[in-house]
């Protein structure tokens, strides 16, 4: 009787384990699969992984550190470690992939990379690792990572270059443009700025201070520079920001048809600020918004994008920590870098 009891329990346990373990066997093969991917960046590698119908959710990336061997840039090895809390998302429908968030000079980091964002609804199933068992690392052999070289071209100690290209120019924008004006680095340009100015306020001003575009009436500037975005990073719909920005450019062109219009990119913020993610102020959002701003540029219409971001960001895509007291507003030295970048890139 006792033996029967033990046997019965054993069988029940076996069945139980079999039932419980089966989903794990479904998940684990995916997690344990080694992908052979050739890519020029870990971001590209992740995009390739998506084609395998497995993608890593952004939340899981924050727990999965993508590291690479700094000492061997030519042949690094990349591991994506799936931790016990990592979620794997399997796509069941094909969706149109949005452009990945990139900056002009993508830099490799040892932290998570942004995934694609898609406005198309997807049917997807999320498998959680319920067994709290650490799944072995996914290795990506034969992956070549090109580590972005540190930006050597602009230094905060560089002297200010010749600013004559800003003759007969105007700057329109927010506090960062106002700082540029205050430092007197471009004394030959006109500035129409306001602390905290957003594209919405510039487009639909409620006060005379916000009505910056009115200053273009009757003017014949050769170049007009626009500095917006820092105050809009928390907007839930980046496309709305871009739409308003586009309307501002249209209005500027109506008032000054002959002017070349320059969209100054949004600047990086310190990593500590980005991690706090207050009001959407993160470097991921900065890069996302900049990518969308870049799409507004059209040289045929005399609209250009100035990617000052690449001059100011460090190898991690952030503003160095000791540059700005609040991690956002930098001082005169970095403003000088900004100006030198513009001088090198305007017509």
């Amino acid at each position: 009787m006792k033996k029967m009891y033990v046997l019965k329990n054993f069988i029940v346990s076996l069945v139980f384990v079999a039932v419980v373990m089966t989903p794990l066997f479904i998940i684990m093969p995916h997690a344990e699969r080694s992908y052979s991917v050739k890519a020029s960046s870990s971001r590209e590698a992740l995009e390739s992984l998506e084609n395998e119908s497995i993608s890593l959710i952004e939340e899981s990336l924050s727990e999965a550190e993508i590291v690479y061997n700094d000492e061997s840039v030519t042949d690094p090895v990349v591991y994506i470690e799936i931790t016990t809390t990592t979620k794997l998302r399997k796509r069941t429908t094909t969706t149109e992939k949005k452009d990945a968030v990139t900056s002009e000079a993508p830099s490799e980091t040892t932290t998570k990379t942004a995934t694609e964002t898609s406005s198309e609804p997807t049917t997807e199933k999320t498998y959680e690792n319920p067994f709290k068992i650490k799944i072995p690392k996914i290795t990506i052999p034969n992956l070549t990572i090109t580590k972005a070289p540190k930006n050597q071209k602009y230094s905060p100690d560089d002297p200010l270059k010749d600013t004559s290209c800003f003759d007969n120019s105007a700057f329109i924008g927010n506090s960062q443009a106002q700082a540029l004006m205050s430092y007197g680095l471009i004394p030959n340009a006109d500035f129409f700025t306001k602390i905290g100015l957003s594209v919405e306020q510039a487009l639909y001003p409620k006060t005379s201070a916000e009505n910056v575009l009115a200053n273009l009436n009757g003017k014949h500037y050769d170049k007009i520079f626009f500095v917006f975005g820092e105050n809009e990073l928390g907007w839930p719909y980046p496309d709305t920001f871009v739409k308003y920005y586009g309307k501002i450019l249209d209005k500027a062109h109506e008032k000054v048809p002959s002017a070349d219009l320059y969209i100054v990119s949004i600047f990086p913020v310190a990593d500590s600020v980005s991690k706090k993610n207050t009001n959407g102020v993160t470097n991921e959002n900065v890069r996302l918004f900049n990518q969308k701003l870049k799409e507004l540029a059209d040289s045929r219409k005399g609209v250009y994008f100035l990617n000052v971001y690449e001059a100011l960001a460090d190898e991690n895509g952030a503003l160095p920590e000791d540059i700005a007291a609040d991690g956002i507003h930098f001082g005169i030295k970095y403003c000088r870098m900004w100006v030198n970048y513009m001088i090198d890139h305007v017509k």
Partner: protein
Amino acid sequence: MKKTACLLLAAMFLFLFFGCGKGGADSADATASDAPLTARDIADRIFAGVKFDDTLTAAPESSAMSVYRLTGYTGDCAYFVSTMATPEEIAVFKTDENHDVAKLKDAAQNRIELQIDNYSSYAPKEVPKLENAVIYTGEDVVVVCVSADNKTADSLIKGLF
């Protein structure tokens, strides 16, 4: 009794000695301060003696004239500006033939009011610095200081004149 008297005399002598010495130092300072301070001298002393949360940078006079809306101003001025993360700044304006103390004070008050309006929505926690900003009016000078320690700034500025 004699001993006490001697001690008292010695103490008086010492007090007189140090008093003279202090007076001597004051005299030396008085000689140096006979020359009027320039706007930049004043701004430098405020910058050195007052606490600021932000990084302040000496800005061109043209910037001061622009933000304080002093059209046609030709007087001696100095301007230390922040990164715009905060409204902290130092501005010193000496009178000229077109801008007396009253006009300069008006410009300063308008500037502070505009900044309160700007920072009320942008960075509300900075507004108290503006509400307690120092606007000092002297015989021929107006000094504006927005800092993290406006009380100290006020004492220091008054002590300069």
